């Protein structure tokens, strides 16, 4: 019988692996400070004193910091890990393990992000709180944020796995990955909160799954979720996002099933 805690071993291993890259993670904080400084100056010039797209200057700085914190908590490299494994035959090391690839990827990511929470996200939050003294949250905001963050974690993972699986059919996948990253930056609200765009564009964004990666968790934390004039609340959005995970999960599993069926692992 397989050990019930076998999945947790993947999380433990990735936590240990992440510890080895702690210097890189700490450097991320330094880079984040530079990024926030740039955005502080730009937003100071553009919206100081006013409210645009539902955002004040303080909200915009918080939005910028939250992008960095959310990224630290949901980032993974499964697109590259799978792409490389498919090309060099290393995919078999995932296939022969006594856990499903999806469960393994989930727990591996959970372990490394747990470490990132302490080394990247928490220091960034503390620095931000010390410098900007943000206003207090309502009790429902942290709960909405945690749920939205969980959704973001899963959406990010499934999309990355889909990109990684494209290696079944393509010799190199970094070009496709680049297009995905750019699209995600625009459609998920990294470039600019989605409420800044014209109403028609917001309606298109609403039906795309990308808002759940950054925009929904970020606005859940700030407490100013707004997309289209349809009066959709953050809770409606979290429910829709949860339901939306089902087709994405089915798509990713199907692509994996089709790809792995004809996979020969030449080069093992």
């Amino acid at each position, binding site marked *: 019988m397989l050990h019930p805690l076998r999945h947790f071993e993947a999380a433990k291993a990735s936590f240990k692996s992440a510890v080895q890259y702690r210097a890189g993670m700490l450097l991320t904080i330094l880079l984040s400070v*530079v990024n926030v400084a740039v955005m502080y*100056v730009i937003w100071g010039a553009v919206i100081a004193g006013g409210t645009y797209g539902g955002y004040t200057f303080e909200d915009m700085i918080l939005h910028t910091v939250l992008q960095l914190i959310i990224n630290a908590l949901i980032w993974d490299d499964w697109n590259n890990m799978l792409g490389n494994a498919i090309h060099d035959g290393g995919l078999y090391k995932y296939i022969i393990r006594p856990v499903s690839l999806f469960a393994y990827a989930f727990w591996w990511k959970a372990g490394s992000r747990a470490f990132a929470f302490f080394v990247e996200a928490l220091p960034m939050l503390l620095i931000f709180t010390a410098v900007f003294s943000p206003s207090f949250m309502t009790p429902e905001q942290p709960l909405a944020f945690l749920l939205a963050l969980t959704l973001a974690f899963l959406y990010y993972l499934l999309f990355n796995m889909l990109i990684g699986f494209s290696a079944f059919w393509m010799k190199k996948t970094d070009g496709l990955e680049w297009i995905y990253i750019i699209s995600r930056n625009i459609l998920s609200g990294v*470039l600019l909160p989605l409420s800044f765009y014209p109403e028609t564009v917001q309606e298109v964004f609403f039906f795309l799954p990308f808002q759940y990666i950054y925009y929904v968790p970020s606005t859940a934390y700030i407490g100013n979720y707004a997309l289209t004039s349809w009066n959709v609340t953050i809770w409606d959005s979290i429910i829709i996002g949860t339901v939306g995970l089902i087709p994405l999960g089915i798509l990713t599993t199907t692509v994996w099933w089709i790809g792995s069926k004809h996979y020969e692992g030449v080069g093992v």
Partner: protein
Amino acid sequence: MNWAKQWLHYIKIRFMEHLQYPGNSLFFLIGFFLTQFQGPIFVLALYNAGATIQGWTKWEIVLLQGLFSIVGGTAFTYFWGLTYKTSTYVRDGRLELFRARPISTLRLVMMHSFHVQDYSQILAGIVITLIAASHLPITIAGIIKASLYAIPGILFLLGLTILAAALQVHFTNVPRMGEILGSLLDYTKFPKRAFGVAQASLVSLSPLFLINYYPTKALLNEPITLTGFTYSLLTGTVILIAGIIYWNYALTTYQGAQG
């Protein structure tokens, strides 16, 4: 074979290499092209929401960003990868082999830093500039002036990347240098005025605005303050000269233990 021939030969090889992966290369070209539109999308959405940058219309800022894509794209295509390539070669010892060759090491690594995909950045820059220019009063004289003003910007970027590459040699890899430089370049995507009074004094000393600010002013046929431009030009020149001197010094300290 002179260096221009060598360079062209290397560019040809890189093109042939990319032709081996047509699908991936096409995705890269589309991706790099789209990347350049992030800035204009940002500005147009901002202005759509009612925000403005005092004294600048949205099309003037889009023009500024289009010119950044052209000038930056030229640098990114031909030499910006110098920092990354140097970092790789320093760590795997190949720099030691390059030093043994009868050709300038800097030129050789620069040749290796050629990046085909960034041609689409230049192309995107031209498209963005044309779109913005269609909403602005642009003259032939302005285009000629802007082209001349863009040259110091390219040379400054060359100096900056040589300086960063020299740091890689001296300290045997400074991690994430590319990202730090990238954050620095973000300042050039908005007009000087965006940075307020406190920053403006620093910015006027900075050569960053050689990249696209002065070319944009020239293209718009707007007056350029001689003092501001001279400061930028001087600091830009100092960075270029310091970069070359530091590179040559750093090479003398490199030991290439794995070479």
